[in-house]
């Protein structure tokens, strides 16, 4: 290793530490509903071998109304074992996989993507990738997409490795990582098959020749591989395409989108040919959703949603990267001659084009517009194109002074961009979106854990929010998580075993809609709910035992007792 390489890895280590691990349990404040669910289920698996519903080593984890992908939960188990059921233990696996992503990305670009003549490009692309706000935001919370990206990168590395070495083991790992990625996050069930299908179609002759050759020369190893691949395929199809693991996909389909169900369908239904108009409306909406990923606001202003709607926010890129991404995309699609000079072969730009288009596909066929998490797989390809855009522009400048001004400008704008992102992520995001991030449930769960024995019952309203009883949460998971409640006891509750029931209560905790006139006021109860659940005279009186305001002070959660 020379000095340049060592310096590069020191910089990457510093970036990785500060962006992925530093104050991981503090920023963002509070675990999300998904994170507490992942943490408690990992704890439950560790203690009992079963999930919170009593299913032994499930292939999909039952959640509220759908099923969670299993990989991240199983990966969290050793961390919970080492660090206990804590916020850090819940978030650490994703941060760790995000760091692995940087290394895998480096291997991919350095070895297989960029031409050896472009010595600076792999370094530049890796720094852009590691500093990406798109990845950082999701790396500091329990998002399966980051882990799925690790397996996708491994899958792509294996594809290129196979094309270079033509080895049977590589081919096996192509398939292995493809399945692992598809199991880990729902979007990847679309992205991974299409990318791999492209690989198969574009290298069909090579594959057929290779399979024929393995069959002849390494018959036993080939048979074993074929058997394992068939078993993996059956397992995947049974559990994640036709089984419970597919429920999330069907829940989030584009046909469930608000714009479609509330904006278009009611009007289409009044048309005599409503079946036709509804169908064309859905296709048009899909096209719109797809094209929305090419809108500037996604990249510059609101893609990450770190601020209230209508406020200036943070896009998925730093502003300075955007013009270079546009340059890179333009070169990719319209100037073969220039773009090919950056890559190891003419196959790479084709592969990158497919990668980008396919990565945007899953988000376009599901509800909600401009979903940064569902399109996260596009990031590595974008990082490659941004670095090409920068290098191409730099090469256009012949004057030494212009080049110096260019580099200084990029560095200054990048530093400003990072500062702005940190400001939004650490300060405005927690304040402006505290309500949607379930702020307050942790404090209430800890308060209740310390005081619940002083009361006959603790009633908790799952509805919350400043606007009224319109947002439903799953607070029971926060109370289980912060009480470290024994999973074996929780699972063993007879009503927890009844199929089709969603029973959440434990000890003296009751998760109900708190409607004040209907509650049993003869007992010594504690009520945890929003202000609209209580008579106004109880708020800010001696009956108010605890109060957690949302960070934007719009409303909050109250713990109130009548005694």
């Amino acid at each position, binding site marked *: 290793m020379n000095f340049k390489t060592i310096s590069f890895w020191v910089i990457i280590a510093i970036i990785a530490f500060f962006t992925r691990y530093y104050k991981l349990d503090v920023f963002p404040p509070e675990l999300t509903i998904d994170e507490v669910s992942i943490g408690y289920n990992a704890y439950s698996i560790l203690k009992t071998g079963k999930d919170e519903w009593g299913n032994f080593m499930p292939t999909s984890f039952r959640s509220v109304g759908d099923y969670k992908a299993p990989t991240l939960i199983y990966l969290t188990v050793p961390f919970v074992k080492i660090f206990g059921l804590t916020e850090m233990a819940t978030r650490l696996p994703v941060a760790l996989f995000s760091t692995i992503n940087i290394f895998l990305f480096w291997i991919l670009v350095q070895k297989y993507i960029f031409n050896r003549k472009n010595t600076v490009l792999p370094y530049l692309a890796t720094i852009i990738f590691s500093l990406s706000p798109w990845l950082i935001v999701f790396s500091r919370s329990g998002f399966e997409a980051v882990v799925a990206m690790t397996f996708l990168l491994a899958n792509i590395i294996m594809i290129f490795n196979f094309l270079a070495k033509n080895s049977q083991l590589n081919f096996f790992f192509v398939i292995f990582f493809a399945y692992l990625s598809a199991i880990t996050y729902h979007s990847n069930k679309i992205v991974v098959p299409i990318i791999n299908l492209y690989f198969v179609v574009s290298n069909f002759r090579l594959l057929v020749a290779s399979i024929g050759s393995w069959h002849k020369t390494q018959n036993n190893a080939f048979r074993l591989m074929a058997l394992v691949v068939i078993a993996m395929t059956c397992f995947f199809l049974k559990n994640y395409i036709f089984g419970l693991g597919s429920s999330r996909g069907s829940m989030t389909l584009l046909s469930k989108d608000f714009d479609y169900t509330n904006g278009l369908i009611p009007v*289409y239904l009044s048309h005599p040919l409503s079946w036709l108009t509804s169908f064309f409306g859905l296709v048009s909406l899909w*096209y719109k959703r797809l094209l929305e990923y090419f*809108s500037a606001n996604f990249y510059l202003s609101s893609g990450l949603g770190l601020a209230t709607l209508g406020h200036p926010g943070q896009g998925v890129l730093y502003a300075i990267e955007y013009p270079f991404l546009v340059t890179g995309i333009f070169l990719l699609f*319209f100037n073969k001659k220039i773009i090919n000079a950056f890559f190891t072969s003419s196959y790479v730009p084709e592969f990158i084009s497919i990668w980008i288009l396919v990565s945007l596909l899953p988000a376009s066929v599901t509800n909600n517009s401009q979903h940064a998490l569902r399109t996260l797989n596009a990031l590595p390809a974008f990082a490659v194109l941004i670095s090409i855009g920068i290098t191409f522009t730099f090469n256009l400048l012949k004057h030494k002074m212009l080049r110096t001004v260019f580099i200084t400008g990029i560095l200054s704008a990048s530093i400003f961009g990072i500062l702005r992102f940190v400001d939004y992520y650490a300060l405005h995001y927690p*304040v402006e979106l505290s309500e949607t991030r379930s702020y307050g449930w942790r404090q209430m769960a800890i308060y209740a854990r310390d005081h619940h024995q002083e009361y006959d019952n603790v009633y908790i309203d799952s509805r919350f929010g400043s606007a009224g009883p319109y947002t439903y949460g799953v607070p029971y998971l926060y109370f289980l998580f912060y009480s470290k409640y024994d999973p074996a006891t929780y699972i063993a509750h007879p009503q927890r075993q009844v199929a089709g029931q969603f029973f959440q209560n434990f000890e003296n905790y009751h998760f109900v809609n708190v409607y004040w006139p209907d509650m049993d006021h003869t007992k010594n109860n504690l009520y945890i709910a929003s202000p609209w659940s209580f008579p106004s005279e109880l708020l800010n009186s001696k009956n108010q035992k605890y109060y957690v305001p949302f960070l934007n002070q719009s409303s909050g959660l109250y713990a109130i007792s009548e005694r």
Partner: protein
Amino acid sequence: MILALLGSIVFATIFVVREKTSIFVVFYLSLLPLVIFSGQPIFSLLLSLLLGYLLYLLFRSPSTKTLLVFVGILIVSVLIYHPRPGLDLGSLNAINAQRGEHPDFQNSFVSRLIHNKAELSHSFVRNFDRLLSPAAIFASGYWHKTNAYYPLGYLFPWDIYFIYIFFKERKDTKGKKTNYQFILGLTSLLLFCGLSYVDDAMIYGFSVVYFLALLAAKGYAVSTKRTQKIFLTIICLYLLYHLQVSKYFYL
């Protein structure tokens, strides 16, 4: 709509004669959703088409004379329509609110560095996206007096393919000088589009859209006669469908 159609036919015919392209292009350009559904007053629509056409001329054969005509018409349009600034008080309030979220915001260097008037650029992006994002152009634009959900772009959905074909088929531009006249023309239209209220910005936004339509028309013109005929049939069906269905979405 008939006047808009006639005006559009005039521009399309001039384009076909100058570019020596297929006669089908006249139909293609005259039947753009932008022309049929815009609902704009005829004068402002024709002004948009004229600016768009001049922008195309600047793109194809840049000259100072064309640029001067373009700038002259742009000035006339500003004098007639007085576009109102689209970066309004609401945006400034949002910036101030975010500055206020900082502890010790009055003395904080970071809050002043980040939350200042430069953040109005986000409003610019928002305004710009309403008229000129790919989603607005090809899938679901902002139409006057129509339900906001109605999925109809300013151009045909497949025009994105023809624009791609146009750039693909374009002869090698290596060695050509940078086209400053075109850059100046385009930048001025984009600035007016992003800085004005959406109602006023439509004149400038539609100019850029019409410029893209002309590129798509060039892409369409290089395809085979059979493809041109097939797409012309699809266009007719597409327009008939939307003329029928859009009635249900009028506000």
